[in-house]
C-alpha cells in the first residue's frame, strides 16, 4: 500500500545533541512537508519542499534544517535540541500539478515523538 513512513516512531535525545528524523513516501508526491505538533495543539508547518525547492516558514528557528535527497525521502535535522523542541514531528505529502486543483489533500505519516532530556 502506498504510504508515508516515518522513522523512528520514538526518539530520545539529550539537550544539545543533534538528531535526525526521517520520512519516506511511496506515493510519488512532489511536495513534502514537516510539521511540529505539541501536546493538545494544532500541527504547525516548519517547512516544505516542492520538488527540490525548499520553502522555509518565516518563524521556523534556524535550529531546524531539512534535506530532500530524492523524491521519496525527506529528513528533519535538529542541530541543537532544546527542551522546548520536544514534540510530535509529522511528515506529510501531497501532489501539486501544473494544472488541476491548486490545493490537494495531504497525507500524513504516523509521526516521530521526540523527547529531549
Amino acid at each position, binding site marked *: 500500500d502506498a504510504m508515508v513512513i516515518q522513522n523512528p516512531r520514538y526518539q530520545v535525545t539529550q539537550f544539545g545533541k543533534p538528531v535526525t528524523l526521517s520520512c519516506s513516501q511511496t506515493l510519488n508526491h512532489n511536495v513534502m512537508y514537516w510539521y511540529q505538533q505539541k501536546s493538545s495543539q494544532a*500541527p504547525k508547518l516548519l517547512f516544505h519542499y516542492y520538488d527540490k525547492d525548499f520553502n522555509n516558514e518565516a518563524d521556523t528557528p534556524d535550529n531546524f534544517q531539512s534535506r530532500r535527497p530524492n523524491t521519496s525521502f525527506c529528513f528533519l535535522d535538529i542541530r541543537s535540541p532544546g527542551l522546548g523542541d520536544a514534540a510530535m514531528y509529522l511528515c506529510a505529502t501531497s501532489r501539486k500539478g501544473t494544472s488541476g486543483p491548486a490545493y490537494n489533500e495531504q497525507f500524513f505519516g504516523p509521526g516521530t515523538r521526540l523527547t529531549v532530556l
Partner: protein
Amino acid sequence: GQQVMQIPQYQHVQEGEDFTTYCNSSTTLSNIQWYKQRPGGHPVFLIQLVKSGEVKKQKRLTFQFGEAKKNSSLHITATQTTDVGTYFCARGGGADGLTFGKGTHLIIQP
C-alpha cells in the same frame, strides 16, 4: 499563512447527540480542508471545500462553506464512540502547506 479561528476548543456530548465545530477567517478563503486526528494518531484528511456556499456530506458528517468563503462548519449527526478525536479545519495546502485551526476536541460519553 493567516490564522483560522476554530470553536469550540472542547466539546463533550452524550453518545447519540449531534456535534458541530466552526471555523472562521477574517479574510476570504480560497479553500478549506478538514482533518480528523484520533487520540495518539495523525491527521487524516476528511474533505476539501472550494466553492461559495458548498455543502458536502459523508454519511453522518455534513460540511459547509459559507457564502462569503470566510467560515466553514462540520456537523456530525448522532455521534458514535468512533467519532472521538480532534477535528481541525485548515486553509491552504498544495505547494504552500496548511495553516490549521486550533482544533475541536470531541469527547463522547457513553
